[in-house]
């Protein structure tokens, strides 16, 4: 177990290094420097700015400096907002993104799994067809369409929730709904097909033959085995919830990291784009690692050392 985690952490570091390198050179391939704007800077000022941010050094030296700073968890200063560091930008946006993201993950598990179970237990009857119809809708409709249409219906027409912001607890409804809509549908479809497959297994027949109670059969033998594929997709779910938050935070004007990221793209704030990308990537990898460990805990059949090899 311990060597497995070490191994995974090592892999993560290699991947992160690849990401840092890739983003660094990509951002330096952008034509024009970070201070190019409509207002022409005097050459002396431009030179002074370049010297201040270390942009006059040869590119490999800039790269090494950047790597060194990343190692101390310092993502550097913003080029567009003087005196603001990327770290403080992320620190300001993180609570909002985490709150909505966590609520969305909870929704995905708390709604997706039960809906899938209901559908599977009522196969080909009306609960099943209803759930599957809604799930098909949810998989096909992009999140920003769900977001905008639900703003129109629930905020503008019915006035039940505010159109933007999180000042009110009701403000969480629409962003979380729009973020999790796709994944609730996805998880309920997955749970349904996986549970249907499990219900056909021999050990289910055995459990029934032993005269176990229905609830025990379903939860202990059926659900625990059929939830394994669901747990595997949770890693990508977290990843997609985080990247999905770009648009959702933009639409609902939530001051989270996703909005920060979109803003820095429109502002061409290169250090911010780099910093937030690296931060996202790191978070995602940690999440995927956690999900993998959870997987092992749920399914004792999996041998970690074998998976690592």
């Amino acid at each position, binding site marked *: 177990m311990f060597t497995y985690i070490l191994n995974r952490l090592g892999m993560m570091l*290699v*991947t992160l290094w*690849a*990401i840092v390198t*890739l*983003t660094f050179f*990509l*951002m330096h*391939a*952008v034509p024009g420097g970070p201070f190019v704007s409509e207002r022409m800077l005097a050459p002396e000022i431009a030179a002074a700015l370049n010297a201040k941010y270390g942009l006059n050094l040869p590119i490999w030296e800039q790269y090494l400096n950047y790597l060194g700073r990343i190692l101390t968890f310092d993502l550097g200063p913003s080029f567009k907002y003087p005196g603001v560091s990327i770290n403080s930008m992320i620190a300001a946006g993180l609570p909002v993104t985490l709150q909505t993201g966590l609520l969305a993950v909870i929704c995905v598990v708390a709604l997706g799994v039960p809906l899938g179970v209901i559908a599977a237990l009522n196969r080909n009857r009306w609960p099943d067809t209803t759930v599957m119809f809604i799930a*098909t809708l949810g*998989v*096909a*409709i*992009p999140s*920003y*369409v769900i977001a*905008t*249409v639900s*703003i*129109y219906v629930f905020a*503008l027409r019915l006035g039940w929730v505010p159109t933007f912001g999180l000042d009110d607890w009701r403000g969480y409804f629409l962003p979380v709904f729009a973020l999790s809509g796709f994944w609730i549908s996805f998880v309920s479809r997955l749970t349904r097909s996986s549970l249907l497959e499990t219900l056909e297994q021999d050990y289910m027949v055995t459990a029934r033959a032993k005269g176990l109670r229905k609830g025990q059969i379903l939860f202990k033998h059926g659900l625990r085995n059929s939830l394994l594929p669901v747990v595997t997709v949770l890693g990508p779910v977290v*990843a997609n919830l*985080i*990247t999905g938050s*770009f*648009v959702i935070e*933009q*639409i609902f004007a939530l001051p989270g990291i996703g909005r920060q*990221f*979109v803003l820095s*793209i*429109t502002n*061409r704030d290169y250090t911010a*784009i780099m910093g937030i*990308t690296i931060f*996202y*990537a790191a978070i*995602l*990898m940690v999440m*995927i690692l956690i999900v993998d460990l959870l997987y092992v805990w749920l399914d004792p059949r999996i041998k970690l050392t074998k998976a690592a090899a």
Partner: protein
Amino acid sequence: MTDISPEMWAKVPAGEKAAPIPPPAPTYGQEVRRRLWANKPAVVSIVFIVLLVIAAFFGPYFSPHTYFKQDLKLANIPPFFETYAVTDGAGETTRFFLNASNFNLYEVDAEGNMLGLLRGGRKDMIKKSQPYEFGDQTLTLDYSKLPVRLLLEDGSEVRSSGWSWNRTYLFGTDQLGRDILVRQLYGAQISLTVAFVATLVNFFIGVFYGGIAGYMGGKVDAVMMRFVEIISTIPLTLYVVLLMVVFDSGLLSIIVAIGSVFWVDMARIVRGQILSLKSQDYVAAARTMGASPARILTRHLLPNSIGPIIVTLTMLIPSAIFIESFMSFIGLGVTPPLASWGSLTSEAVETLRAYPHQLFFPAAAISLTMFAFNFLGDGLRDALDPRVGR
């Protein structure tokens, strides 16, 4: 027919069965086609996609409007409206409708063709009203209280003469007075082009990469798959965003950005297929006959793994459409005045409060298209899977 001997025509005695002639066994292709045609949602999806492609690529030629021509006088026209008619002393009748969100009157004819903006008299800023003269008749547009009212000289409200479709702009116009239908069709054209070309690029990279990794095996395979593993842990949407920042927005760069990133799944699937196929006897036979690896790969291995490849391909198209519209939505996609479903949606969101109909069309178009490709992908997967049926 004359050379058939007469006894062949003789009647078979009762109780004796004629030798049954089995029909020719259907080929794999025929089986797949039969299963696919039996799947109703998939067939409807194919019809929808074909119609969409035809409409997107040929539709704009049949429209008098273009996707870039602006007419600010005719901005934000709805697709249908409630018409009013006023007859003056000389017997001249003017038909018009009221755009309740920008307080303008537009003249229309009896069929619903747009004739233009009606010019009113001086606005009374304090009473919030504006007079409109029709010959000797004067109408007052009173917008001091919502909803807006149209008053006759004696203070009674003008009665509407019914609802009418907009014949000039079938889907209405956007905030710059551009025809939404044509922009919609152009948007479909761009979204579909990006999706198809990017998917094709992904297909070639993925098949090439996965094919080589699977066929070579051993160390080459291990190194190549380790690389794929690293790529797949990187959040790919972020990379499309970064590439778009580097390339600058535009049609070509979004194709390159999407096309260069999403081949990982395809590579994995092709590799898996090739690994399981390459130990088959026919591959050994081909090798003994001196066929080159390239020939074995393209002539023997890839055609036999075509099923999963096609399914992955159909599933890639909707995700490419989605990523493109996502990019356009956050402002990294095609440059204006070009339109795509994503940019149309984000433009519509700006005017959502007053003109919700502008959101309806792009949102419906992209959702229906995603449906169609999803159903088609499901149908193809069921049809191509040789384990089912037979």
